[in-house]
């Protein structure tokens, strides 16, 4: 996508340099100047909180702006074994985690989440669905009802946001809340362990795949389009 944008910008008379994550796509789309980085999706600049590595990547990319002719596609020389992005389907389903646990689980994580926000000067990835957190027990009950196939909705859903998009934003908010709480509770946990915990041990991690399954089974293309971004 950024490679396509680079071509649009160059055609409009702007110089561009692009970080490319799929070398094979950059070879085909041919942006003017691209630096291939061999990192997993979500890690374009290498690693979180590693300013030195991020600067090395930016310097390697900015160097390409001085090239006299192109297209140029170079490889960033540093490489690391990527962490594994675990999805729900990679872990056994936990039937012993009861539905009623989800709201209590959320309450139990709240203090850790608040510590995360405080330690990060107010920064949080939570905040897409618009439901205030004191109403999140209601959000969980709504998602449980939706997963059971009931005609469910929330009166707080903004009128210009479809039910499916609203569910996706709620799911994104819950994930961010859980992961941030867990990272505050156990700093420096490798991401693979965070995913194993979320999808493998939490009640919300059991609920979201059920929500995704109802959407994927829907006749409505708008619901199907969302399903893939809930859980897989």
């Amino acid at each position, binding site marked *: 996508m950024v490679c396509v944008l680079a071509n*649009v910008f160059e055609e409009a*008379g702007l110089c561009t340099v692009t970080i490319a994550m799929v070398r094979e796509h950059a070879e085909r789309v041919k942006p003017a100047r691209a630096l291939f980085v061999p990192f997993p999706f979500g890690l374009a600049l290498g690693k979180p909180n590693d*300013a030195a590595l991020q600067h090395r990547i930016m310097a390697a990319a900015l160097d390409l702006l001085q090239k006299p002719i192109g297209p140029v596609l170079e490889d960033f020389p540093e490489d690391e074994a990527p962490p594994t992005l675990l999805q729900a389907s990679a872990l056994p389903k936990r039937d012993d985690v009861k539905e009623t646990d989800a709201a209590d689980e959320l309450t139990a994580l709240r203090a850790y989440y608040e510590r995360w926000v405080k330690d990060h000067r107010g920064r949080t990835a939570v905040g897409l669905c618009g439901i205030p957190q004191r109403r999140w027990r209601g959000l969980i009950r709504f998602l449980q009802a939706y997963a059971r196939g009931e005609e469910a909705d929330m009166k707080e859903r903004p009128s210009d946001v479809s039910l499916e998009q609203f569910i996706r934003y709620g799911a994104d908010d819950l994930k961010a809340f859980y992961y941030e709480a867990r990272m505050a509770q156990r700093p420096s946990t490798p991401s693979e362990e965070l995913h194993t915990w979320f999808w493998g041990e939490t009640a919300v991690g059991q609920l979201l795949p059920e929500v995704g399954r109802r959407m994927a089974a829907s006749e409505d293309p708008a619901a199907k389009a969302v399903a893939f971004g809930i859980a897989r």
Partner: protein
Amino acid sequence: MPRLERLSEVNRQTLTSFPCLERDTAPWQPMQQDLAQSRLALVTSAGLHLRGDRPFISNPKGGDTSYRVIPATAKAAEITQSHASIGFDRTAIYQDINVSLPIDRMQELAARGVIGSVAPNFYSFMGALRNPRGIVEETGPEVARRLKHEGVDAVFLTPT
């Protein structure tokens, strides 16, 4: 990205067959001046936007081709992500926005004199679009016009 040979067969097939706007030649705009005299902007496909701005949607017709403006002075706490895909590890950006949109690194490069200046605005799109036509024909050229109007010499593009 992880090199294709490191991925599962399903992931590899998806990426290999992903629709690309393939081309034989690339448009090429030469740099007119040194980097230290240039104004740079960030443009990302990480689905980022200001908190309170309209989130991106999961569009069944090939993706959301709209864009959002992020002032270069926005703090990390003011920016959030509504990318429709869960095919990337969000734990990285939960910890540090610079891993997708290097806002702090850009200011540091300007402070060190490596680049001339940071543009007033950055722009954000959503990635993983199966049909980028809207971007090629409409929103991409629109953002290009805005960047030029804002005196930008070079654009640094970051994916998710």
